[in-house]
């Protein structure tokens, strides 16, 4: 069934046991918090990001949403945790490309790891924004953090 390309086992696993879920709040650290919603379906994510020396020191999130948005945010958190922002943005770009591919590419497993399981989402245009919700929140938080540093 076409559906299995959307809901791969690893996605359902992340959905049931999401990683990095539950907001950390360590007052000693400089946390950037963002809140993103998907207005058409009401999915929401709040994301806390701690960056030091251009590296993701700590990422955590909370939110409500479908299996795709929850799993994707969980996978994204695994992928960026500990990475430099440059590396993290490379992963993000690769994932965005995968999502825009309409099912024509399979994704770079070396770079995207579990996130390649989301390749099937790109065949369901209405779900792409679910898969991207957490990633866009991360991007926003990372850019806000950089802005904050500069000023």
């Amino acid at each position, binding site marked *: *069934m*076409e*559906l299995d390309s*959307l*809901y791969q086992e690893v996605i*359902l696993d992340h959905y049931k046991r999401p990683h990095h879920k539950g907001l950390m709040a360590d007052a000693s650290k400089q946390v950037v918090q963002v809140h993103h919603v998907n207005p*058409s*379906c*009401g*999915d*929401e994510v709040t994301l806390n990001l701690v960056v030091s020396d251009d590296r993701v020191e700590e990422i955590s999130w909370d939110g*409500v*949403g*479908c*299996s*795709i948005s*929850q799993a994707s945010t969980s996978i994204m958190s695994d992928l960026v945790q500990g990475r430099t922002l440059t590396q993290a943005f490379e992963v993000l770009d690769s994932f965005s490309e995968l999502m825009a591919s309409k099912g024509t590419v399979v994704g770079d497993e070396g770079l995207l790891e579990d996130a390649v399981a989301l390749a099937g989402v790109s065949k*369901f245009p209405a*779900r792409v924004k*679910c898969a991207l919700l957490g990633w866009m929140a991360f991007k926003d938080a990372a850019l806000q953090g950089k802005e904050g540093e500069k000023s």
Partner: protein
Amino acid sequence: MTLLDVQSIKADFPIFNKKMRNDARLVYLDSGATSHKPLQVLNAEREFYTLHNAAVHRGSHLLAEEASAAYEGAREKVAHFLGAAADDVVFTKSATESLNLLAYSFSNTNRGQFALAAGDEILVSEMEHHANLIPWQQLAKRTGAKLRWFGTTTEGRLDLSNIDELITERTKIVAITHQSNVLGTVNPVTDIARKAHACGAIVVLDACQSAPHFEIDVNSLGVDFLAFSGHKALAPTGVGVLWGRAELLAEMEPFLFGGSMIESVTMEAATWAPAPRKFEAGVPNMAQAVGLGAAVEYLTSIGMEKIHAHEKALTEHALQGLQNISGLTLIGPQSTIDRGGVLSFSLEEIHPHDVGQVLDQYGIAVRTGHHCAWPLMRKFGVSGTTRASFYIYNDLADVDALIDGIAATKKYFKVL
């Protein structure tokens, strides 16, 4: 049970020939969002374009004459459908525009009964569609009036327990939905209107989910304005209706300004034509209005009472089926009393988006999300629901397909 002859109705709707994913037939349970269109409507539009197309009201040539007759004829059909006079029917692009028209028109004046100010109140309800909520929030913001609202009971009814506190001499506008697009609840409009009128308020009815489904008579309803969308009533997209009481339409300021709505124009100022022209600036959505005329004729030829009975039977069957599914929570009235064929539910921890996706594999089209009624979602503590809604082309087999589809969804997500 008095069901319609769905097979012969479906023959009028070409979309049911379409093969869905996995070669499934189309089980369309999303008429609450938009309905499909019968050939009669599509042909009426095409006939307009291929035989009578011209800008209405502006020319002496034959096509312009015929186009005007077709457009005004559509207005008469819609008026007849609502038990109204033709001149009290305004064509808009949608119910959303109809409701915004009112909210803007009311703030385009600062005198008379439509003028609002600090101290005045606008009353809505917690179960409003965003289209009957945000325009009033904005009107309140523009004028300094205060927005208040009826709450909702846990059964999904309007909470009228504090109606005497809510409807007072301060209330200038009461805007409520006839039938909730989430809960299916049909509200006691006439009672509320009577109370509102006793306090001198104007009553606006959002009939998006009622006018397509049961008989409406604007006189016996007792409201002052009524809005609905053509596309939910078998008509083309891009056309809506605003009905208003003649004496109120006459007093109101226009909303959109431009051609055809004027009496006279200089560089400095302009005066207005009488209603309904005053509210129809520009070359109107002529073909869509003509399509709407054909749609209400089609509905009338089936009979609104029969349509209502048909949907009631489907709803009865669906309520029984859904109530038997463990883990399913139906949000809204649990019986067919004062409720229409719109059913919203949650299914264990399976997100509505995921429910909808599995159903889609079986050709079953439902709506998922907040249904443009976000405050109501918060009230019920959910981020969204799955919603099935019925119309004349649905039958008991469609309801059974839904019930089976939900079972399959639970199985797929291993929730048993």
